[in-house]
């Protein structure tokens, strides 16, 4: 990807592992980056290290998305790329998912990306922009232990496709990256959130969990002109997890 093709990017959820790796990756090639997130400490550290602009905000608060987008457009004076990396994970089968957990997942993983995309579409249309959403392998192959999360990610994946159709006449591309279990990403949040069963998350045929920087590489590619023919696409970065029923869990 050349810096010339993706000059100005908003990364939502930039204080998370994958979002943060995306910010780092885009900054190495000189893109102007604004990122949002809830974690003030991580935001400040990432901004200091990369020179990206941090806009704190919790997408579940009313008006937060509009405020983040307004500030990003002000700082960047336009927009070439939008990376939807906001997301939360909740480890629970559907039958044990509370209304509160369900609402948090739908609001954060589905409604917030919709609001971000809608708010950014006009700006992205000005110069042939690109949207990349971080979905999940669970969007394609749901995980019973991550019931509502799987549902939310399927909906997000579909949103990137519908945005691709809608953006096609406006010069806006929209694609999804589906990471497998990502080391230091959501996978670690799962393990912290609930007592596990002593088993690892599924290990793909490649033998290794995905890394955040591998996901960031895919995002950078989909934002770039090199991916100019791709819209409505899904790029799995999962070590072969979805290719077949070959993932195994190992006792830790």
């Amino acid at each position, binding site marked *: 990807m050349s810096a010339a093709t993706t000059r100005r990017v908003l990364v939502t959820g930039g204080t998370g592992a994958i979002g943060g790796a995306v910010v780092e990756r885009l900054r190495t090639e000189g893109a102007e980056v604004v990122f949002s997130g809830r974690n003030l400490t991580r935001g400040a550290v990432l901004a200091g290290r990369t020179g990206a602009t941090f806009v704190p905000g919790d997408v579940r608060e009313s008006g937060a998305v509009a405020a983040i987008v307004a500030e990003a457009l002000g700082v960047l004076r336009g927009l070439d790329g939008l990376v939807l990396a906001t997301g939360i994970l909740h480890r629970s089968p559907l039958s044990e998912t509370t209304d509160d957990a369900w609402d948090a997942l739908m609001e954060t993983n589905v409604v917030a990306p919709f609001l971000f995309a809608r708010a950014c*579409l006009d700006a992205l249309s000005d110069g042939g922009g690109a949207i990349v959403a971080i979905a999940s392998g669970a969007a394609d192959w749901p995980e019973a232990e991550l019931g*509502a999360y799987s549902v939310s990610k*399927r909906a997000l994946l579909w949103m990137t496709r519908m945005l691709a159709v809608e953006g096609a006449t406006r010069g806006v591309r929209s694609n999804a990256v589906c990471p497998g279990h990502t080391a230091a990403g959501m996978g670690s949040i799962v393990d912290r959130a609930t007592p596990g069963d002593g088993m690892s998350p599924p290990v793909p045929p490649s033998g290794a969990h995905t890394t955040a920087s591998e996901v960031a590489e895919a995002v950078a590619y989909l934002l770039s002109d090199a991916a100019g023919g791709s819209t409505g696409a899904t790029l799995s970065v999962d070590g072969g997890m979805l290719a077949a029923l070959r993932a195994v869990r190992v006792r830790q």
Partner: protein
Amino acid sequence: MSAELRGKTALVTGGTSGIGRAVVEHLAEVGMQVAFCGRDAERGASVAAASGASFIRSDATDRDDCDRSVEQAASLLGGRLDLFVGCAAMIFAAPLGSTPEPIFRELVEVNLTATFRYSRACFEVMRRQGRGVITHVVSDAALRGIHHIPAYSVTKAGVLALSETLAAEAAPHGVRVNAICPGAVFPGMQTTPEGYEHHAEDASTWGSAPSGRHGTGRDVSNAVLWLASEAAAHVSGATLRLDGAAGVATRGVSRA
């Protein structure tokens, strides 16, 4: 396959119109005890009178209503629930870029959250019984998005994932969960946000499926009956495309 369902109990959401109504009528016709939910009291009363099924007035946007309707159904049906059919849904035709936030949220609430909450409640009953069948009427929009109803497509994709995921969770408990994905069905959905009712009322602009016609509610209710029967005893987590081959391949169009 229908005889075995006689006397069994069913709860149907969205039963006052369209596919849901056809499902209510068909289940009652084969002798099931049926309770059904819907918003419109007048339509509900007329479906109840014609079918003998019990109407429970309930608005899928109202969570208290939903909870109450499940309790009411349980008491109407003698505490046993053999079949749940989720048909309640709302449609909206506009690009995402011009879909108002409250309408997007309403689509999530009605199509996705209410389906989840009904399914969770019904699964709880079925798990205690050690058997039961849940069938979600989803949409072909969940198999391939439909460009003029993007927000609807997003929520229906979520419902399909819900159906698959719940199937995996429910299987060890003797509960089967499946999805039916109909293509264009007439009479179609009447539940649209205020001011957009015209989207669902008129099929004159619809192209027919390669089969030469639109789907009917009876097509869908036939599939519901089969999925509820012992003939489908090992069918769970399945998606049944029911669209007269409309969505399986691109097609050349002959122009005169």
